[in-house]
């Protein structure tokens, strides 16, 4: 089995305050990792470390993904003043073959010419998740993907993730809401 | 070393030049400014250091 993300002895300090210490884990292709923990335990920081945006204070983290990492975080990376359609162009998804299918599934078909600022929070989140559903990468990282989603969309997300796992993709996510996904669990509370 | 440039203390104070102008005001005010700026900077840093040392203890 190919390892996609390999972390050894990660420690992180912010302004001399320790967030976590000596975390080691491997994530293989075709498997998922669920990062758990209360508020302020460093879930987002850990995810950003895997992305390579933050650097660990000690230890090393390597990612063997060839393609761009697919990521959605707390910020949606949507342009508020553009319409849904323009945003899809910016994401280079406007010509994707599965676009129509997901637009109907997520009930976004009717709001294509609405500016994002006029969408509800949940709708914006769904639009941001389109980036995940139509991804072209072997490592998918989701930071609290379920915030603001209705149960229908959550199911679509779960189903989608399970499908992706079968395609040997590697998924790392953090979530307070339980998802029906077979995943290894990394609990930051107990460290 | 050269000899004293002024004949009396009062002359040194006014610093009368050959052209008749008194430059004492300028020279002494610059000296005062330099002196006080340095002094204040030293005092400020000493004070701050004292304060933070207390905190650390």
């Amino acid at each position, binding site marked *: 089995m190919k390892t996609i993300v390999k972390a050894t002895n990660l420690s992180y300090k912010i302004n001399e305050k320790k967030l976590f210490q000596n975390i080691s884990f491997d994530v293989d292709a075709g498997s998922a990792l669920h990062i758990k923990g209360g508020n302020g335990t460093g879930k987002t920081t850990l995810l950003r470390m895997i992305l*390579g*945006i*933050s650097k660990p204070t000690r230890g090393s983290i390597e990612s063997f993904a060839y393609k*761009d990492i697919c*990521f959605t975080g707390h*910020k949606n*990376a*949507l342009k508020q003043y553009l319409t849904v359609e*323009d945003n899809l162009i*910016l994401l280079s998804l406007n010509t994707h073959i599965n676009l129509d299918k997901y637009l109907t599934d997520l009930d976004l078909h009717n709001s294509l010419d609405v500016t994002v600022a006029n969408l509800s929070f949940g709708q914006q989140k769904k639009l941001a998740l389109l980036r995940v559903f139509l991804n072209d990468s072997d490592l998918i990282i989701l930071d609290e993907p379920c915030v603001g989603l209705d149960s229908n969309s959550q199911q679509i997300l779960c189903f989608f993730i399970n499908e992706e796992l079968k395609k040997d993709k590697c998924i790392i996510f953090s979530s307070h809401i339980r998802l029906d996904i077979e995943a290894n669990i990394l609990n930051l509370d107990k460290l | 070393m050269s000899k004293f440039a002024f004949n009396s203390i009062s002359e040194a104070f006014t610093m009368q030049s050959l052209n008749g102008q008194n430059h004492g005001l300028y020279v002494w005010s610059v000296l005062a400014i330099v002196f006080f700026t340095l002094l204040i900077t030293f005092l400020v840093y000493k004070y701050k250091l004292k304060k933070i040392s207390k905190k650390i203890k």
Partner: protein
Amino acid sequence: MKIFYFEFLKLRKKSRGWIGPILVFVLIMTAFPLTVEFLNEDLDQAFFSVLWIALMLVMMLATEDIFLEDYNDGSLEQLALKNQSLALILGTKIFIYWMLIGVPISFIGSFYGFGITRSFDLGLNILPILLVTSYIFLNVFSFGNALSLTKGSVLGTLITMPLVLPLLVVLGKVVISINIGLNYFGFLALLLGILSIIIVVIPLIISFIIRAHLE
């Protein structure tokens, strides 16, 4: 090519981002004759000072949220994740800003130069200077705004203004040499030289700064 189009689309649709600065520039250039008596000589003398200062202020205004918006909505994170070079993307962004704001302002500025000094040559002569200078200003102010990304544009202005002051001196010399009919291409070459260094170096520095901000 794709990033080029994307950045263009973003800025074009955000009309206040590029029409705003141009309008402010037009307003300043229209307003300044009102403060002087309507004698042509006076206007001539004040014109260039106002032009350069207005150009600088407007470029400052234009770059105010050049990275802030992308930072706030998370686009910068996504850009940083790509295998593509971040510096290239940022350089393109600045270029698009120049295309949509710097170039029109340069033309308007040279038009005003023609209108106020009544000399066609002069209007034509300052056009290349305006084009190059506006690009330099945009680069330098983008650098300042990247440094003070989350701290407001006042700080960015404060730290980058000293960096562009020498440019104003050069611009003053350019005007004098145009006025007395000297060849000003030496200065143009100098400005182009500065620009060519800045175009390469500033995006690299900005990408370093932005990665540090995201950390």
